């Protein structure tokens, strides 16, 4: 959040931005890192990589939303 004073519309915009970008970030996180986990599990035969990738993806997506809108 910047130092200069923010008008209420801008807060509203930020909130809406955050709220509506969350689902697509979560989906993307799961697809990218869950997908990598799936590839790894096919390559190594260790199935645990799929849930690890999915959870890592969701965690990163939540962290990304925090970085963009929560700070």
């Amino acid at each position, binding site marked *: 959040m910047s130092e200069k004073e923010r008008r209420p519309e801008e807060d509203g915009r930020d909130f809406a931005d955050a709220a509506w970008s969350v689902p697509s970030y979560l989906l*993307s996180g799961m697809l990218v890192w869950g997908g990598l986990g799936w590839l790894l599990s096919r390559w190594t035969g260790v199935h645990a990589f799929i849930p690890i990738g999915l959870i890592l993806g969701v965690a990163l997506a939540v962290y*990304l939303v925090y970085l963009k809108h929560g700070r």
Partner: protein
Amino acid sequence: MDTLTLLAADKFQAPGPSIFDFPPLYAGAPAWLNKPVLFAVVGALIVCVFMWSAFANPKLVPRGVQNIGEIGYIFVRDQVARPFLGKDAERWMPLLLSVFSLILLWNLFGVVPFVQFPIASHIAFPAIFAGTIYVIKLYLGIKHQGFLGYFKNMMFPPGLPKPIYVLLAPIEFLSNLIIAPFTHAVRLFANMFAGHLILAFFSAVGFWFLFEKLTPLGAGLGVLGVIMTIAMTGFEIFIQFLQAFLFAMLAAMYLGGSLHPEH
């Protein structure tokens, strides 16, 4: 078509995805020329005529149709355009107002007697809208931030240690360029599809148990079906308005994000 399938069967059959399939309008018509396409065009014409009669000859003190038109314009400007586009809001109002009013009318067709089909429940229609917004978003982003700048602003939020970017940049890329336009279209489509199915189901229950197979035990269920049809129609009108608003709002959000990078 509902009634025909209901009459043909002896047992109650819940309406399924087949209620979204329509035959050509008349014998010998091309296969694409069916009821949804007809009413998509009718809806566009109604919006054109409405806007023309409201704003072609505007008065300082609005009367009649101009009043309603101005309420719509002010709603879209203050709730959709200004929060996301700021001082550029007026420039984008023609696009946003057209998108909002056409989608709202198409959605409302779902509860208009005899039309009774929300056009956006065929995914091609919202997909074309979302695709158009997507192309404008990319064009504006590259024009205002430069080709590399656009992708840099999108994928690399500033002020992070470098290794973190390796983890986050692919998520940003996929989210902004693939998932966002997809959910933009699917959100409208799925709401209209499900809403139409719910209305068709409850009205089929009412029709079947009160008119087709009236029995002392079934009558109560039929009455419940009719009551639920009325209640869900009210709910659907709310959802239809909400989804038209959300579609326009997300369009404004994407365009605003391309015009003014966040940081």
